């Protein structure tokens, strides 16, 4: 039989956005160490159902670390202490028998709690809508190879584009700043020749929307990079700062 452990969960329970939440203690016994963290919660939920209680609600979907839906703060760290993983890729073998595990939602005022551990991250969608795209109409593209792109730039763009939009960077930042997320998208497109035409508009628009959503600002502690499941670099933040400054100057000169 597979090895099992018993752990004590300190879980954030909150009925809805309007209700106040609190930490509840739930015992999780006989958890196979080969189970994933989310499967551990599945097992706990099965028992809660059997006891006639409501389940612990959490976001999840692909369970292979790419969709960005899962979003738990585990023992104070977004996606748990293992590096470069999402919550769904964390396994119970990382814990020991008798451990107490604190599970909280990704906290940020821009991410209101919907229920228990589920938060509303639509603020990130609205930031993308404010300029995180190349405004090209379907059917109007030229041949893909008519525009060679320096490999280094293409690689930098790809590294930034690997962002899965999970919001761990926001959750890990003491200021709930979305700079890593915003800068990753800005860097993806601003690095590429296709993104140049709208660079100024994109940078100013995305930053304005980011501020309007109530995210905090960056104090260069790099917690975001440390928890990012895709290891997005804070270089992108430096680039966004630079691009913001130059875009503001250009816009300012134009206005004068």
């Amino acid at each position, binding site marked *: 039989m597979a090895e099992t452990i018993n752990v004590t969960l300190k879980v954030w329970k909150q009925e809805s956005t309007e209700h106040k939440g609190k930490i509840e203690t739930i015992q999780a016994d006989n958890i196979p160490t080969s189970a994933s963290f989310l499967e551990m919660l599945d097992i706990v939920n099965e028992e809660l159902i059997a006891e006639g209680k409501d389940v612990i609600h959490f976001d999840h979907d692909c369970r292979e670390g790419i969709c960005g839906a899962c979003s738990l703060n585990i023992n104070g760290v977004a996606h748990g202490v293992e590096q470069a993983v999402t919550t769904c890729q964390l396994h119970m073998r990382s814990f020991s028998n008798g451990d107490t595990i604190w599970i909280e939602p990704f906290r940020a005022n821009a991410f209101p709690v919907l229920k228990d551990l589920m938060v509303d991250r639509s603020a990130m969608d609205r930031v993308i809508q404010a300029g995180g795209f190349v405004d090209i109409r379907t059917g109007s593209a030229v041949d893909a190879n008519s525009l060679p792109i320096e490999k280094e730039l293409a690689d930098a763009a790809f590294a930034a584009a690997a962002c899965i939009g999970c919001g761990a960077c926001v959750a890990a930042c003491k200021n709930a700043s979305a700079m890593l997320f915003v800068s990753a998208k800005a860097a993806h497109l601003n690095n590429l020749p296709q993104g140049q035409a709208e660079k100024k508009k994109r940078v100013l628009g995305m930053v304005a929307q980011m501020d309007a959503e109530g995210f905090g*600002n960056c104090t260069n502690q790099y917690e975001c990079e440390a928890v990012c499941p895709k290891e997005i670099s804070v270089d992108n933040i430096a680039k966004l700062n630079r691009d913001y400054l130059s875009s503001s100057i250009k816009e300012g000169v134009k206005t004068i």
Partner: protein
Amino acid sequence: MSTCFNFFTSSIGRKIVVAVTGLLLFLFCLVHLGGNMLIFVGQEAFNDYAYKLHHMLHGALIWIARVGLLGLAAAHVLATVSLVIQNKTAREPYHFQKTVRATLTSKLMPLSGLMVLFFIIFHILHFTVRLDALGTNDPSYQLDGGYFDAWQMVVDGFANHWVSIIYLISVFLLGLHLKHGFASLFQTLGLSSNKTRKHFEVASILLSLLIFVGFASIPVLVGFVGLYR
């Protein structure tokens, strides 16, 4: 106009204000430190330097500098305060708190900054305004020919060990503040990258040490060791 306004109300714009003013204030610290070191050259050199500072451009320079520095400090503080308020309202704390990479100095920035601000006020009252209560307003410092015995004032000022302790603690906090601040400003101004970030961090440690050791040498040597007593 609105672009300008947007820049100064945006989070990145305000951060840039903090970085640029921080950089200028840091440069001022270096110049200030250079002047201070004249204490160890001798009474005359130090007093000459003070005289020149007060009489350049017919005495206007010192006021331009004072107003400028005050403006820089005010901008630095006001922008920071508004950013801190934004950050404090951006989220509620976790019940289980933990950080993975954040340095201690980065966590202490608002505190160290605030303490340095108090110190600056104290320092101005102590050596610039020369409040009677702080004992630096002795008529004997006024020398003939408009000269002022700044050197003696400083030596006397640090004779009080409590004052020396305050200075020592304050310049230590200034060092901490600069350790995060100096490296950080390159990131905020978009000048750092994965390759250069480490170098900036090393430079930041060295420069903040220089500032701390330099400024601390005066209360230590003049105050505690009693070099000129």
